[in-house]
């Protein structure tokens, strides 16, 4: 493990964290779970005592042949990715990184996935198991380090995206993937309508596409796979080469598009595959189509209900990425249907009776 230890400080503070949770439970003190504090913008502000996870870091085990890595939640994403890259492997969901301090625990808790998502799967799809601190401060293990495991309820995947509102993630086991042998990114001039048509057409073919975006009259594609198929597809699509850093800038929101003017909020529209452009009063230049059109970034001053109604009509939902900015929505996530909300509350009440875990981070009511 010395080789891996170079990437991430190896420190297990699970016992201390359990003590802190236990005491918060006893004193009914809300906790704000903090990793690298790079994703605090995502969701509602949490008023609570900080539970610092960053020191709980290091790779617990990594067996490249098993395609499994187990890592402590406070481990920096960059450190984990470097350790995997050494063995020519990667996290399949291409997690966004909003700063060097970004941790793997935060990546799973927020459940965000990068450009590869529609082809490879989301954060939760790669989670095999977790260790979780419960409200009583007990450290429990769910799932495991094997690819297939259907014993008991899938609590590990439930934790992905729950934003720390159901328990504290301390360790996570992932299925990892080999880094593809060949990669090539390209750009093609094409209008939006034709681009969406082309994406649907390409999507029905077994092509080695692992990212597809459209913006300002250009389609951006990433091909990954074996050398033969990537070069054959590249020849067939015939575009201009594109630097791979484009995808990182889209993933991490460092692309120029994500510069907002004072009256704009940043929204993420999540829509079914092959959804036509929504009838919203937004200039084309202020929309960035990612995930072959399933994830659309929008800069707008339109209000939440207008955006959400348009998304709902198309079978999707809208999330505000700048809830604190002028024109942002105080409730960043789309409100839940009444029945679904009832079961969210029930679940929260069962797993966090006193509301100590990131209260109101997702929704004001819990």
């Amino acid at each position, binding site marked *: 493990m010395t080789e891996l230890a170079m990437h991430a400080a190896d420190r297990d503070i699970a016992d201390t964290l359990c003590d802190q949770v236990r005491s918060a439970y006893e004193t009914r003190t809300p906790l704000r779970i903090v990793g690298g504090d790079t994703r605090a913008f995502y969701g509602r502000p949490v008023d609570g005592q900080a539970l610092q996870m960053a020191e709980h870091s290091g790779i617990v085990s990594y*067996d*490249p*042949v*098993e395609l*499994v890595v187990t890592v402590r939640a406070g481990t920096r994403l960059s450190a984990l990715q470097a350790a995997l890259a050494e063995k*020519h492997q990667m996290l399949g969901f291409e997690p966004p990184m909003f700063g060097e301090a970004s941790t793997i625990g935060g990546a799973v808790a927020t*459940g965000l996935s990068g450009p590869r998502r529609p082809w490879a799967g989301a954060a939760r*799809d790669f989670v095999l198991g977790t260790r979780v601190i*419960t409200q009583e401060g007990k450290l*429990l*293990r*769910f799932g*495991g*380090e*094997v*690819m*297939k*495991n*259907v*014993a*008991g*309820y*899938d*609590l590990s*995947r*439930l934790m*992905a*995206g*729950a934003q720390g509102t*159901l328990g504290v993630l301390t360790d996570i086991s992932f299925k990892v993937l*080999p880094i593809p042998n060949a990669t090539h990114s390209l750009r093609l001039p094409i209008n939006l309508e034709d681009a969406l048509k082309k994406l649907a057409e390409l*999507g*029905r*073919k*077994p*092509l*080695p596409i692992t990212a597809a975006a459209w913006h300002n009259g250009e389609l951006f594609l990433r091909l990954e*796979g*074996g*050398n*033969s*198929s990537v070069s*054959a597809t590249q020849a067939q699509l015939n575009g201009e080469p594109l630097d791979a850093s484009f995808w990182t800038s889209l993933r991490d929101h460092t692309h120029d598009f994500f510069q907002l003017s004072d009256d704009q909020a940043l929204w993420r529209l*999540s829509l*079914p*595959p*092959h959804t036509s452009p929504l009838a919203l009063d937004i200039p084309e230049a202020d929309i960035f189509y990612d995930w072959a059109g*399933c994830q659309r970034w929008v800069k707008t001053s339109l209000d939440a209900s207008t955006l959400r109604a348009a998304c709902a009509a198309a*079978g*999707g*939902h809208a999330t505000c990425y700048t809830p604190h900015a002028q024109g942002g929505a105080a409730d960043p*996530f789309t409100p*839940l*249907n009444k*029945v*679904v909300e009832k*079961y969210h509350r*029930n*679940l929260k009440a069962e797993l966090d009776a006193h509301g100590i875990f990131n209260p109101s981070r*997702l929704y004001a009511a819990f």
Partner: protein
Amino acid sequence: MNILFDERLDGELVQRDKSEVLSDLQQAVPDMTLLHREEDLRPFECDGLAAYRVLPMLVALPETLQQVEGLLKRCHTLGVPVVTRGAGTGLSGGALPLEQGVLLVMSRFNKILSVDPDARMARVQPGVRNLAISEAAAPFGLYYAPDPSSQIACSIGGNVAENAGGVHCLKYGLTVHNVMRVDVLTIEGEHMTLGAESLDAPGFDLLALINGSEGMLGVVTEITVKLLPKPETAKVLMASFDDVEKAGRAVGDIIAAGIIPGGLEMMDKLAIKAAEDFVKAGYPLDAEAILLCELDGVEADVDDDCDTVRRVLEAAGATNIQQARDEAERAKFWAGRKNAFPAVGRMSPDYYCMDGTIPRRELPRVLKGIAALSEESGLAVANVFHAGDGNMHPLILFDANKEGQLALAEEVGGKILELCVAAGGSITGEHGVGREKINQMCSQFQPDEISVFHALKAAFDPKRLLNPGKNIPTLARCAEFGAMHVHNNELPHPDLPRF
């Protein structure tokens, strides 16, 4: 320790008079088929785990959502348990009825509602057969990836309940990775949609939670699945080994070479013989183990990968490597594997199929352990293995007509699962816990973890009316189980009350 529902261990059920429940439900849901005569109930007394049979109080065969809703609301009011069943092919007794319960059979919900080739998804009812989805998608060059061996017969609703797998999981995932959205009726009869046609939905990932929840949290009434473009080509290599351990190591070597095969299966000598006798797949009878490695994708890449895998297999000591020359031979190679269970069934009056998973590196050690258990018990064990993802299917051969052999087979099975847990694995990779592995759950999970599972259940079904007794054992059952499995003079759960 018997796995049949035991109120003393599994919790009390409301006692209701059958005729009273029957007339109540007939009145509440007048147009629904409700079976109550013994001869009509008999076909529903078991699922794929046929060693266990219980006659349900009533069998409901609804055809509309309103009927399911009406039935659930009434059962909720009466406190009558509901066991939901799809095609009844499950191997863990997940749809084993309860004497005091209604068996809700969803098989009449068998329509494919839509196939959208541009969005690459299909909306289907829960009673639709797994294979029927791929058949409906085939004209568009698409298919539904998870392919449990029972795919001709098993229903997609059951697949969701069990989070079903198949031989292509390592590359294409389980059911949970391929379902986008489900409509659910709660035990109170409320309609709820989990997931979405978009790639995510707001709130908790209840879609992930419902997959594999074995009918304990709600009744799935509609499913939207993801469809994939059919790979341009699939080629299969068969490698023979004179030693099982070498075959096991070769599996790791293939993955280490950066290749994720579409399917990677292993069979031991006894399974090879059974399959060869049954379907004449062309398997080498002198081999101790064979590996079937399927590579799929774009033609040119597959050819490159075949070369790589061939080199890896040679280096790993394969005594013979054969690539299927054409589609017919490829189908023949797979026929042996897909028919391995019935093939073993021809060798022995009965067999008991296990479903443990392990980290692949533990394979040699676990196989040795299984061989020792086989020798000790005198029961032969054939090993069929989804090698790529560490999912073992040891088949324990026995004769139920011989006194004590079923119990012995179950005992050996239980010990095999404990070996898997000790190796860092799981008691079930794809068949589910159901009733079959209810006791072994106590060896995989601590009482505190089981309590969290009960809390999850309580959030959805506090009266414990949906499939009671399945999937999650009570702490009382674990205490009883622990008392019978004293290791090194230590009780596993000394803090729990005992009976």
